[in-house]
């Protein structure tokens, strides 16, 4: 798993860390039962404070994605496939809502938006 932070983003750093780890879990990059990187090690690697990573990990625990095995670290919980599908679909719904709102604000036609989506889709 590689975490890349954007320091100019309006999204707080802990949120970026949480989202990227969550994506890695959902995408199967971190297997169920595997340890997340040591909190302090990750803080040193990402050049962020310890509480920033603590907050991200605590949120992952609250979301049921990881659990804190005291003294040993954070372990990825049993991954519920249906919950992942639900989470991914909610993410798409949110992104689409944002896309439509941005398109309306820019007074674009839905065809233009769809064309932009297709360009982005084939770019990767």
């Amino acid at each position, binding site marked *: 798993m590689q975490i890349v932070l954007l320091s100019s983003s309006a999204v707080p750093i802990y949120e970026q860390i949480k989202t990227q780890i969550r994506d890695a879990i959902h995408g199967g990059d971190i297997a169920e039962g595997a340890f997340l990187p*040591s909190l*302090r090690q990750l*803080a*040193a690697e990402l*050049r*962020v*404070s*310890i*509480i920033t990573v603590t*907050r991200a990990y605590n949120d992952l625990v609250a979301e049921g994605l990881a659990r804190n095995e005291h003294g040993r670290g954070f372990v990825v919980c049993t991954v519920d496939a249906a919950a992942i599908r639900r989470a991914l679909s909610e993410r798409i719904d949110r992104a689409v809502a944002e896309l439509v709102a941005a398109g309306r604000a820019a007074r674009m036609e839905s065809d233009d938006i769809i064309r932009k989506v297709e360009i982005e889709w084939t770019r990767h």
Partner: protein
Amino acid sequence: MDATLISDAVIIQNLLVKRGAFALRDIDVRVPTGFVTGVVGPNGAGKTSLIKALLGLIAPDEGTITLFGAEHPGNRAAQQRIGVVLDRVTAMPEWHVGSIGRRIGPLYAEWDEELFRGLLERFEIPADNRVDALSRGQSVKLSLAMALAHRPQLLLLDEPSSGLDPVARRDLADIIREFMVDPSHTVLFSTHITSELDELADHIIVLNDGLVAFAGMLDELHERFAIVRGRPPFPDEARPATIGLRFESSGVYEALIRTEDTARFGPDTVIDAASTDDVVVHFAEHARSARHSARDGGPAAPGKESNR
């Protein structure tokens, strides 16, 4: 005694330190084990006095300082466990860097010459250089190497980044973070560069005019304070809720407030998140206007802004 069992590496209670006309007073703070604590405040706020008192270099006039669960100063066992980086290297100017281990190593039970040599290499400080031939950046790194080589549990750094270029500053932050990988380690550093705190500190002590303006976790600081901005007229009844109230020439005002006071300001004002910088600047402004009104014979504003 196992340091990992003590949740606060340093406990300062009711501290009073007089330094001429200046006094560090009513200091009640803790430095949590396993975290980086930043001490921030404008020049003259008392940051260096606080660190010197922690080291036993100046004796408190009142109050107690507890290090690793034992009262200090005069506690040699505690001294062994503290690594110190002050504004000057604690080595004689004519010494050669490579001879430092032989000279000061014996003072420490845990001096690790191999670690010291390794750090010198990593910091690119030639062992055959004299101490007085080092640049500011090299001096700070030498101090760090000396501090780390006796395997301390607490690292105290007084304005370590002042005078360092951005590359050296980043190296310093990296070394502190590496030190913190061990959860029994604790760091306390002073700075007046608030961006450094946001990147490095978990816990923060805001000093202003010898008093603690805030002490707590950094995210708590952001939850506790906000910035209010508005167009004239200023709601005079809300004045006591403001910290460091400032008026632009246009009449637009800005102040730091406690989040719970948000409702005291009308819908035509803007409430913004307070940065660490905002907190430091507005507390300083607050103290300055209190000093001015005291001098002009007006009512003195309350001096103490403590969260405890």
